[in-house]
């Protein structure tokens, strides 16, 4: 099967001379849940923004669905660390923003938007303004917005890192539930080892800046994942393995 994302020898040096990415090379299979794991400032966001077409690589090439990425694409959904909801729009209208931007017919997608909201358990808030929602609820809405136009690829940049620990675990479970129904390819950026293990099919470890992909492992935990798995030996073996590889990477 052809790959959903191909990152081929990609490097990024910012205009100021900061080399964020030395070289990244990996592929993401269709329907795969892939995590990019690395310490803060190592270039995770930079890499994700390049896949999103929001930032141009300095070297190498990125292909999504066999087409060279030259700018934002209509079949990609993005979730940022903050929910970035427009405060003057209701929850439903926020979810429908991509539909408007892409000049699709609103009536064709209103139904889907409501279904996504009810799957994310925020349908009661469809007519409310964002400031009436909690942080976790806002991020659920942001995920619905990323999925409303039915993209094949979902890019997530530390989407749960601003949430408290309990909400965070809950959100992970719900993301997996939505992912199970909609079967998107997901590239998920995180600096939490446990989160990466819990969610992913495969984890790539990025070294500190200038980043390279230092280590990768498949996570062969059964699906659907449950909270209890976090105490299982196998789960903690993956966590240990990844921690060691990160510590090895940070050695001078």
């Amino acid at each position: 099967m052809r790959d959903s994302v191909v990152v081929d020898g990609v490097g990024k040096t910012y205009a100021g001379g900061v080399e964020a990415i030395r070289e990244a090379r990996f592929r993401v299979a269709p329907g795969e849940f892939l995590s990019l794991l690395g310490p803060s400032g190592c270039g995770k966001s930079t890499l994700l923004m390049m896949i999103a077409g929001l930032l141009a690589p300095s070297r190498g090439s990125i292909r999504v669905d066999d087409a060279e990425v030259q700018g934002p694409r209509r079949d990609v959904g993005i979730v940022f660390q903050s929910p970035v909801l427009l405060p003057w729009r209701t929850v439903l209208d926020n979810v429908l923003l991509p539909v408007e931007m892409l000049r699709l017919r609103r009536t064709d997608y209103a139904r889907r938007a409501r279904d996504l909201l009810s799957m994310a358990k925020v349908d009661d808030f469809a007519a409310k303004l964002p400031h009436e929602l909690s942080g976790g609820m806002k991020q659920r809405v942001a995920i619905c917005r990323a999925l409303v136009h039915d993209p094949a690829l979902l890019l997530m940049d530390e989407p749960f890192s601003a949430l408290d620990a309990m909400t965070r675990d809950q959100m992970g479970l719900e993301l997996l539930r939505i992912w199970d129904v909609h079967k998107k390819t997901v590239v998920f950026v995180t600096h939490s080892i446990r989160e990466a293990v819990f969610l992913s099919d495969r984890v790539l470890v990025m070294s500190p800046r200038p980043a390279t992909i230092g280590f990768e492992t498949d996570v062969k935990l059964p699906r659907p994942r449950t909270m209890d798995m976090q105490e299982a030996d196998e789960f903690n073996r993956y966590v240990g393995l990844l921690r060691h590889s990160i510590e090895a990477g940070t050695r001078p």
Partner: protein
Amino acid sequence: MRGRSLLWPLAVTLAALVAWEAVVAALRVKTLLLPRPSLVAGVLWSRAPLILEHMWPTFYQIVLGFLLSLVGGVVVAVLLTYSEIVRKGFYPLIVVSQIVPKVAVAPLFVVWFGLGDLSRLLLAFLIAFFPIVINTATGLTSVDDDFVRMARGYMGTRRQIFTKIRLPHAMPLIFGGMKISITLAVIGVVVAEFVAAQRGIGYLIVMANGLLDTPLMMAAIAALSLMGLALYGVVAGLERLVVYWQVRTETPRGGFA
């Protein structure tokens, strides 16, 4: 809520008027110097036709000058935001032009634009324009990068980013500018009327001054203030409708106790 927030200022105003009345009566202050508030109120009532006649031209020039500065200010702010040439070339000039006290330019405007409405309108525009430009430009450019990145990620065009994100984001600040602007437009028109006019509240004040008719002068000032207050109220009311998403903080009860 709203009724209660007006209660205290009204009570204080009333108390001040009563004190004024009492002091003037007790010290037998000459009416020429400081008339009693009740006398001013009486003049406001008995000479209402005269005051209203002069109020109308002042009113419509304030409104016109304000609307002109609103449209002009927003257009200039958009140009400042999107054109580097305008930003680099004209923005410093606009700022420097604000250092010239516009009130001092009023007589010059009469020389340039004549004794008619035009010179008064232009002075109001010139004074009221600046807060709109500054606030709008600040609002349009202070959008968080994440919002623009999000919109671009969904293939938003520059125009879409302007209409769907930058402009609504700027609305609270634009209204902040409008509230300053409407009070400045009042000043602009009245000062221009002081300099040269055959009608208008500014003219009435100068005329009453010449006749040593202090009660009429104060009645005219009171009428002008009430008009200014009403205009401000209209803008503030519109703001509540348009900027509906601004979270109005609920003040906890109990104060600082």
